């Protein structure tokens, strides 16, 4: 049996009359990068909050390293980056890292934390004087400074520029290479597509899909056929199996159920058709389909 680092078993959680989680079961396995996806209000942050012992469940059980998540021993094995968290603006970046490192038994050296997160140039700057993106990088540094076995990252790349996002992605890959488990919530589906070993899709507090990125993608049986053609989009939209047609510059994008059949028809109907591409559905399409289906 695979060990579970964190586990929610049939957990329900209400805030007043709002049901945030509804008999949700979710686990985190050793060395994996689990992306927890879902629209706003799906229960992603609540699920993480329960695993971290910030909330108590109304029913069901929550374990962190086999222990109660409020246990300080269990939390010493975990690093955290919250979606919104303010840090004392008067303290320097190095001081914040030293402070959080002091909570852990065997933290990473300060220089290594700063090198991993490319925050060396910020070391002696007060937190309050940093830009929004720099603040997120420092919070990311705090999540990994304790050499945790598992890291929870709640929307880590929101507000980051392309370079900083690249740094976070690269560091996540390195940490996973060292065997650290990562739980990531994100609105950027391409982030999950690139990084995740496993994806869990939440909707209205329930788990609506879980599996590898390929498994999630495969729930969508549509593909995109892209080409340059003399055929008119209005006519193509009437073809059987064609769900939608749109024009992007000079090319048409057809969303189809049976790509092979549509391609044969296209080639037969237009002998000058060119720039042909067939693209399978991405995580974005899968996510849209799953959440729309669950909303029905």
């Amino acid at each position, binding site marked *: 049996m695979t060990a579970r680092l964190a586990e929610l078993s049939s957990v329900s959680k209400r805030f007043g009359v709002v049901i945030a989680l509804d008999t949700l079961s979710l686990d985190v396995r050793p060395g994996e990068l689990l992306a927890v996806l879902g629209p706003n209000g799906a229960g992603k942050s609540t699920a993480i909050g329960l695993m971290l012992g910030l909330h108590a469940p109304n029913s069901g059980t929550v374990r962190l390293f086999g222990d109660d998540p409020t246990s300080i021993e269990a939390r010493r094995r975990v690093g955290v980056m919250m979606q919104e968290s303010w840090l004392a603006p008067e303290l320097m970046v190095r001081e914040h890292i030293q402070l959080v490192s002091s*909570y852990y038994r065997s933290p990473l050296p300060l220089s290594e934390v700063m090198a991993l997160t490319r925050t060396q140039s910020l070391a002696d700057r007060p937190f309050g004087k940093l830009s929004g993106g720099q603040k997120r990088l420092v919070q990311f540094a705090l999540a990994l400074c304790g050499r945790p076995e598992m890291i929870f990252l709640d929307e880590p790349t929101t507000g980051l520029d392309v370079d900083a996002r690249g740094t976070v992605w690269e560091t996540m890959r390195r940490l996973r290479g060292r065997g650290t488990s990562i739980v990531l919530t994100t609105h950027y589906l391409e982030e999950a597509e690139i990084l995740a070993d496993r994806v869990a899709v939440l909707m209205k507090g329930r788990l609506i899909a879980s599996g590898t990125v390929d498994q999630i993608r495969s729930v969508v049986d549509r593909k995109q056929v892209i080409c340059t053609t003399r055929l008119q989009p209005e006519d193509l939209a009437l073809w059987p199996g064609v769900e939608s047609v749109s024009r992007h510059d000079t090319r048409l994008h057809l969303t189809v159920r049976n790509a092979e059949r549509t391609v044969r028809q296209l080639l037969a109907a237009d002998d000058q058709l060119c720039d042909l591409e067939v693209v399978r559905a991405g995580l974005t399409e899968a996510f849209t389909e799953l959440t729309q289906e669950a909303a029905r």
Partner: protein
Amino acid sequence: MTLWRALFTETKYECIRALRAPAFGVPMIVLPAALYLFFGVVLQLSNRTPQIDIAIFAGFAVMGVMGPGLFGFGVFVAVEREQGLLKLKRALPMPPSAYILAKMFMTALVALLVTMIVSAAAFAAGKVSLTAGQWAAFGATLVGGALAFSAIGLLIGSRAGGRSAPAFVNLIYLPMIYLSGFLIPLPKSFDSVTRLSPAYHLDRLALHAVGLGGDAPMPHVIVLAGVTLGFGALAIRRLARSD
């Protein structure tokens, strides 16, 4: 070992950030001495006995040590709670006691600095002459008494929003000073009101420490201990509620 390292580091950085905070550190430490020198020494409107000089000095020192607890806990905790820092600290493996112990130590340190600077001002102005034992008792009384105001501040911080906390603290701090009767003498009819104020009781204990107490100190100790424990317990219960 980790526990002590965490406690030490939390306390160290709580003191550093409080002393660096532009609206807290320097104003909180220097302002009481400046007010004492201006109103208690420069604006000397009538001939005063040495006892009155000491009582005025003690009154300004009491006013000074109320601030760090009320503002240090009241405003800092409110902001940190509202902005998610408290939540982050609860998710991190910070020892649960470290947050409050660090702030208590910071408050005691600032209260000690306030007491030392007001004392130095009074000594330099030639207004107060105490024995070493009286100085020590006076300092210990004020630093210990500051805990009661920390507990009141903590309760404000556990309930108020970050923006409204300074207003709430001032709403309590300023009337408490005036209604305690130790800086502005109040008529006898106000006695029942002054006795409700923890600041009045700390002032009485401070006067005891410098040899001017005319009543039993124990009731004042009991009131301040009760305020510390009662307000502290209410605040901690409030902060412990996670949902």
